[in-house]
């Protein structure tokens, strides 16, 4: 079906609802869909989590293995994040190398983990300049119900929180939990005809032109942000999103995640 035509009809509907202060699924503008997090779902992975936000389902796996550090940062561990929009998750996804959407999602997820200092990378050094632990975070999107971004970020931190460094397997000492010192949480909002709605559903994501993702850390400071989509936002809209996103992130953190 032609996405563009459908969305023009939907756009009208969502816009009119927005004017009445409503959303198609009956949520309040700043209400986030039901979140489910299940950790330790993949025994073979060093850490894993399955996250659902409404219809959106993702699975995040963490693999940890020894590797060579980058020459300019010889004494810290390495994080590598990838995300795949596999064709299983949506009729719109195709197989092949990651395209710009997937690259963006992976990079923003990575930014949140890295910039909030969530992983104490100094503690991942085995032999300076030679051997460090490399943390691979891989996110597979299973069902695209909108707002993959927040699900991916949530999945990656949830998986990291349960991850173990498999030192015994490599004869490098005893297994230990991955040193986590912060819990970044991502909250995304979309602009629908001037109204800002949080945690957009697939329909809202298609209709809205401009999204803003805000990733905040435990102390409520910002660790990362990304505007996505071809429209624009006013400074007032942006400040509003930041404010609400930080609060919502705190709620999610308290409810679902702890060190």
């Amino acid at each position, binding site marked *: 079906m032609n*996405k563009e035509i459908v969305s023009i009809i939907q756009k009208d509907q*969502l816009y009119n609802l927005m004017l009445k202060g409503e959303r198609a699924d009956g949520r309040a503008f700043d209400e986030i869909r039901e979140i489910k997090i299940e950790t330790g779902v993949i025994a073979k992975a060093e850490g894993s989590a399955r996250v659902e936000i409404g219809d959106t389902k993702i699975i995040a796996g963490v693999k940890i293995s020894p590797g060579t550090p980058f020459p300019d940062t010889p004494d810290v561990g390495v994080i*590598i994040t990838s995300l795949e929009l596999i064709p299983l998750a949506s009729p719109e996804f195709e197989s092949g*190398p990651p395209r710009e959407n997937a690259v963006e999602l992976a990079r923003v997820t*990575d930014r949140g983990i890295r910039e909030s200092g969530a992983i104490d990378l100094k503690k991942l050094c085995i032999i300076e300049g030679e051997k460090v632990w490399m943390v691979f975070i891989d996110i597979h999107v299973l069902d695209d119900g909108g707002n993959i971004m927040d699900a991916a970020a949530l999945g990656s931190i949830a998986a990291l929180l349960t991850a173990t460094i498999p030192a015994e397997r490599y004869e490098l000492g005893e297994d230990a939990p991955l040193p986590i010192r912060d819990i970044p949480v991502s909250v995304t909002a979309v602009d629908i005809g001037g109204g800002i709605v949080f945690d957009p559903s697939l329909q809202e994501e298609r209709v809205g032109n401009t999204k803003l993702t805000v990733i905040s850390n435990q102390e409520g*400071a910002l660790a990362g942000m990304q505007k996505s989509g*071809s429209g*624009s936002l006013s400074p007032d809209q942006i400040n509003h999103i*930041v404010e609400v996103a930080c609060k919502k992130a705190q709620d999610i953190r308290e409810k679902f995640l702890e060190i």
Partner: protein
Amino acid sequence: MTDKPEKFIDENGIRSDNRRANEIRDVKIEVGVLSRADGSCYLEFGKNKVMAAVYGPREVHPRHQQKSNRAIVRYKYNMASFSVEDRKRPGPDRRSIEVSKVSREALEDQIFTEYFPKSAIDIFVEVLQADAGTRTAAINAASVALADAGIPMRSLVSACAVGKVDDTLVLDLNKDEDNYGQADMPIAMTPDGKITLLQMDGHLTEEEFKQGLEMAQEGCRQIYEMQRKALIDYYSKETEVTAAGDVKENAQEKPEGVTPVEVIEDTEKIDDTNKTGDAKETEGTVENVYPEETGDTVKSGDADELEDSGVEVPHIGENADETDGQMDESEEESSNE
């Protein structure tokens, strides 16, 4: 790469490159520097050197990407392998794919794409020398190049970053501040204050963010004035030359039939009518003609569709993921921007 300086700002509030916290680096803009492109711009932003070229509106290849109701916009940000300290492996990496995407999205909405159905507007930006802030420099150059190409736009787009060093907000980070600073937040905006690009990484409190956003907007305003002046200077010079009966200087470099040729009479008018101003005036009409394209809920799924049809997809090898991840990594670690 230099080591982390002990202090970024001295006791007098002066930064390592003699700027104050709210000052941007020197900007140099040259318009119409390439002969084959429909519009072009060479821009220096501090030690950054970027070249932007615009082609189009032109036929879409591959054809399946074309849109029946508007032009598609494609943006390619590319770093020359010699632009950074450690040679960059040529070709698109994950970083440049993301930069291309957000930069396209920063400009796309300001272009009257509905004027050119079934066509493509291609923007290519080459980073020749990188020194922190290449994506903002690239957007600034691309915006001028679009105007130079005579593409009708709602307005120019200006970009500038704000960041945090020594717990102080500073405008337009330099290389050391970018590498070792506490936060980096590039933004792009239109002169009427619409934010079209916003990214951030590092650590900012909500209060710092609000201040930073205002600082960055001020930086964008300054850059906007420079972009505008560069365009006015370029086209008024051309006018004088033409008036004197000697068409050579600039006009000759332009391919046939390109806008500058039409804008001979009135210097003042040139910039206002033929460039952004014109676009603004017509905006009302456009809204009537395309009611569904107005408001803020325009063009749903655009990005998705572009994506689906494979724009800017790097055709890298099978192991693209892993190698790219590492590239990406090393880049972010060494901040090879």
